[in-house]
């Protein structure tokens, strides 16, 4: 879109079928001109190489853990200079930068109540360096640091509940979204910007290389994560659950797991059945907790 082109451009280095640019352009569609702070990660590498910047908005990358702190500084500066009208401050950070490395800075930003929109691009592992497990990697996923082997069937521990952590900080608006529904991302960002204070949106974003799928499967697989209730799309305003994306005929989790290389071993591994049953339990629990079944 021509309007998009001015904020984020073609020619970036994302893999064919990558979910990140879809998430970024859907967010920028809602924010318009804004100030972007980016943590280290795939998005930084594909969009900000020297002389090849894909950004049409002010953009800063500092280090891995401090995107939330940098954004907080920008917001405080804009306030002090009386320049808040020039656009919102937005953080784009990966799941590792959000749930592991940068969680301290994020907690501080929430705590001080900065007027910042924090967008976590959740591709469920450190994909930039080649699929190492993060706090947001789901159980059963085979990564280079949790490889499926004779003993362990991939990652053992649960996916960290970041939306709940954001809610515990009394973030004013907390939502999850998926690249399978870009118009929904745009709507949620528009809604988030109506709140003054810290806001958190976590976007499920496909990684074709890390998940082991073809570019063509990216959107269908992302859609299956939502349709199986493994990735519930939920919205909280001032701590209250206000909207969810209902699911008609919820699908079994196997349908989401089967097309992906990172879960392939689950269908052969002696402990695979247990992990699939655990993931199905998580999905059932999500459906019950948030009332997802239509």
């Amino acid at each position, binding site marked *: 879109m021509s309007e998009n082109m001015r904020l984020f451009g073609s020619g970036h280095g994302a893999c*064919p079928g990558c979910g990140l640019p879809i998430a970024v352009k859907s967010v920028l569609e809602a924010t318009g001109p804004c100030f972007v702070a980016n943590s280290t990660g795939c998005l930084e590498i594909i969009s900000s190489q020297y*002389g090849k910047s894909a950004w049409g908005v002010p953009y800063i990358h500092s280090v891995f853990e401090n995107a939330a702190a940098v954004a907080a500084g920008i917001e405080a500066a804009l306030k002090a200079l009386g320049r808040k009208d020039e656009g919102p401050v937005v953080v784009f950070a990966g799941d590792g930068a959000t749930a592991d490395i940068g969680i301290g800075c994020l907690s501080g930003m929430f705590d001080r109540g900065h007027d910042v929109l924090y967008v976590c691009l959740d591709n469920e592992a450190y994909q930039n360096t080649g699929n190492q497990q993060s706090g947001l990697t789901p159980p059963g996923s085979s990564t280079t640091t949790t490889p499926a082997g004779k003993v362990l069937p991939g990652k053992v521990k649960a996916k960290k509940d970041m939306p709940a952590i954001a809610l515990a900080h009394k973030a004013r608006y907390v939502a999850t979204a998926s690249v399978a529904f870009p118009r929904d991302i745009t709507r949620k960002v528009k809604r988030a910007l109506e709140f003054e204070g810290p806001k958190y949106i976590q976007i499920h974003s496909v990684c074709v290389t890390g998940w082991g799928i073809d570019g063509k499967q990216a959107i269908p697989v992302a859609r299956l994560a939502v349709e199986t209730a493994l990735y519930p799309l939920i919205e909280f305003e001032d701590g209250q659950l206000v909207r969810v994306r209902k699911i008609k005929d919820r699908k079994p989790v196997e349908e989401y797991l089967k097309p992906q290389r990172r879960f392939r071993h689950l269908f052969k591994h002696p402990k695979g059945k247990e992990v699939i049953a655990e993931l199905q339990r998580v999905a059932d629990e999500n459906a019950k907790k948030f009332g997802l079944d239509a």
Partner: protein
Amino acid sequence: MGEKLRITLGAVSRPLESLKIKTGDWGAEYPVVIEENCKACGDCVVYCPDLCIELVETGEVDEKGRKKKVAKVNYDYCKGCGTCSVVCRHDAIKMEIKEIYKG
């Protein structure tokens, strides 16, 4: 509003310099829009990860007097991921293998 700070010395990144990187030669496939099926719903525009599809006017006018539009791919940047062909609900985009990868 105060005067904007503009840095001109050292390593300065300018906006949208990525546009000079023509990623159109990455893929083995490319999308072809079947114009008679295209309803200009804009789904491919919204999903395209490389921001290289836009709706353009065909010059024709439909029965209600509205200007007809169709999806148009900018092959300078299309990496051939096939996302547009998957999300299209009207069978209006099909993927074809590039000539050099055939046979």
